[in-house]
């Protein structure tokens, strides 16, 4: 007879196995592998800089920048109720000495407001020699890491020279690289030996694993008879011994370190920066992505409520920048910095104070394809997002978030 429950369970297991085996290897890595809508409509980073790209072990590096929580947040992504500013580096090449968001310490997790802008600063200290691509990133609870722009950084020197000294609240100077290490190793070995002895003891107490399970089934209600008086004695001795050791170690640690504070796990709320739009509004009227041309074309209704004529100089999304070189210029910081130096053009000219004007904007670059943003047009909700940068004749800069539905044009 066919057992329906078993059949379903086996089918699910086999199908899951085949799906895993059939999955084509991912050709992208890091930020490119994240969905386009996630990169364009969650956290938008800009003005990200590193203080240096070459440093020695023990030297400090400062990463600064700004991020904007996109107003049209995707429904399926958790909002930043609990988030933590971090740096993404493959391996412990640096230690973080401090981080700040709008000047407030970023030690704790933070709640952020959608539609607001914040600035950050992270101070890192080089720990070991490596050449790494480091990213600013924001860990958002239930949403995962939202990755910022990356920079290639090279650390030289000897890790043996690394020190990470701090002064505690009691005035003692300690090196966090080695502090407590011997004690941790000692206790790991101690409990490892106890655990191994416990396992070994039971290996020699009759059948184990499946044979023991079968014997338990056979004995039924008398299965407890398998545990002898000697077994029970060993168990009681180990239980009491464990409690004694734990209690002793607690009081010993308390005597050695009488002044302690708990690990800080609070959550703070940091006020946002003033509106970066500075009196400029912009609204997408229509937008299409020209597939063979690798171009995003959109109409932008812009109102200028500032005192200076403004012109469009940049569009940024998913850490890629499309520059209008007639207004604003930028070159890639390194070989993996996606800056389309000539990627943006527009029709409509300057928008004068008090004027509302329709601009026809085109953002062209291979990055739409090579950074997998063009995949957006195959989403069930093909909406794009990003920031546009307007520059006034007085040198001012207004940053406005834009977004809307995107229609593909295949011809």
């Amino acid at each position: 007879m066919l057992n329906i429950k078993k059949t379903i369970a086996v089918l699910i297991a086999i199908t899951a196995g085949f799906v895993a085996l059939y999955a084509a290897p991912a050709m992208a890595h890091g930020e490119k592998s994240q969905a386009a809508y996630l990169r364009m409509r969650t956290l938008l980073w800009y003005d990200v800089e590193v203080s240096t790209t070459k440093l020695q072990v023990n030297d400090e590096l400062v990463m600064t920048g700004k991020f904007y929580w996109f107003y049209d947040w995707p429904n399926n992504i958790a909002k930043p109720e609990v988030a933590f500013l971090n740096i993404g580096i493959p391996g412990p090449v640096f230690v973080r000495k401090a981080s700040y968001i709008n000047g407030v310490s970023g030690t704790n997790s933070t709640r952020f407001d959608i539609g607001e802008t914040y600035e950050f600063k992270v101070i890192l200290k080089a720990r070991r020699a490596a050449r790494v691509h480091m990213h600013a990133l924001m860990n958002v609870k239930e949403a995962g890491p939202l990755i910022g722009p990356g920079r290639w950084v090279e650390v030289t020197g000897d890790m043996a020279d690394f020190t990470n000294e701090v002064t505690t609240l009691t005035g003692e100077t300690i090196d966090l690289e080695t502090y407590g290490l011997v004690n941790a190793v000692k206790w790991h070995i101690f409990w490892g030996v106890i655990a191994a002895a416990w396992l070994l003891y039971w290996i020699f107490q009759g059948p184990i694993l499946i044979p023991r399970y079968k014997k338990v089934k056979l004995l039924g209600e008398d299965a407890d008879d398998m545990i002898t008086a000697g077994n029970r004695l060993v168990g009681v001795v180990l239980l009491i011994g464990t409690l004694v050791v734990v209690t002793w170690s607690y009081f010993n640690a308390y005597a050695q370190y009488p002044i302690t504070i708990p690990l800080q796990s609070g959550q703070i709320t940091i006020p946002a920066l003033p509106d970066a739009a500075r009196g400029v509004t912009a609204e997408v009227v229509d937008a299409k992505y020209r597939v063979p041309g690798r171009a995003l074309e959109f109409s932008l209704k812009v109102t200028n409520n500032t005192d200076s004529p403004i012109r469009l100089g940049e569009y940024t999304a998913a850490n890629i920048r499309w520059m209008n070189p007639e207004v604003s210029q930028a070159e890639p910081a390194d070989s993996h910095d996606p800056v389309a130096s000539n990627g943006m053009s527009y029709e409509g000219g300057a928008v004068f104070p008090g004027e509302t004007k329709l601009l026809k904007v085109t953002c062209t670059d291979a990055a739409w394809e090579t950074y997998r943003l063009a995949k957006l047009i195959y989403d069930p909700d093909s909406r794009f997002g990003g920031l546009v940068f307007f520059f006034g004749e007085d040198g001012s800069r207004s940053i406005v978030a834009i977004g809307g539905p995107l229609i593909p044009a295949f011809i």
Partner: protein
Amino acid sequence: MSKVFYIILLTLIATNTWGHGGVMNEGNECKLRVGPYVMNFSGYQPSNKVSQQFCDDMPTVGKSIIVLDFIDNKLRDMTVNFRVIKSDVAALGTDEDGIINDDELAQTPHFEIPAKQYPTGTMTISQDFTEKGHFIGYVVVEGENEKFISRFPFSVGYPKPGIPAALKAPIAVFLIIIIIMVWLARRKPVVLNAKKED
């Protein structure tokens, strides 16, 4: 029964990698290798298969668009020349497809995009293939002190034989389910030791 199972298993776990000379279909991306540099290769036939993307071979005649997206930014500072010549034979599907032939390069091309720089990293080639046939594409990139050539044969108007790619996975899953159902129906039920003693 087990042989069929293993055949299906091996078919499913085989990675979809194949190529014609310089153009390689790696997983879900079509790439063109020119020396040490890599471009994304995308073919479109807007009048016949509007939203479908092809890797070198064009299944039908008609207006075709080939787009090369430079993955390596250094290509943006180099000139790129694209030329296509007619061929009597289809791609062999071997390493020979990628061997540069000076006689072919000396021929008058069927069509050509002269060498120039593409600062946006995208080269778009539009061509109306009026009749089906076999062709050889050449991409020549040239910088200050370096020059690389890539050769890739392709066909126009010859649809790929065999089961359409979109149907392969559903057919495989269907076959697996049938095999498992038959296997479960034929095997003997498990009897626990305890029950035996009863």
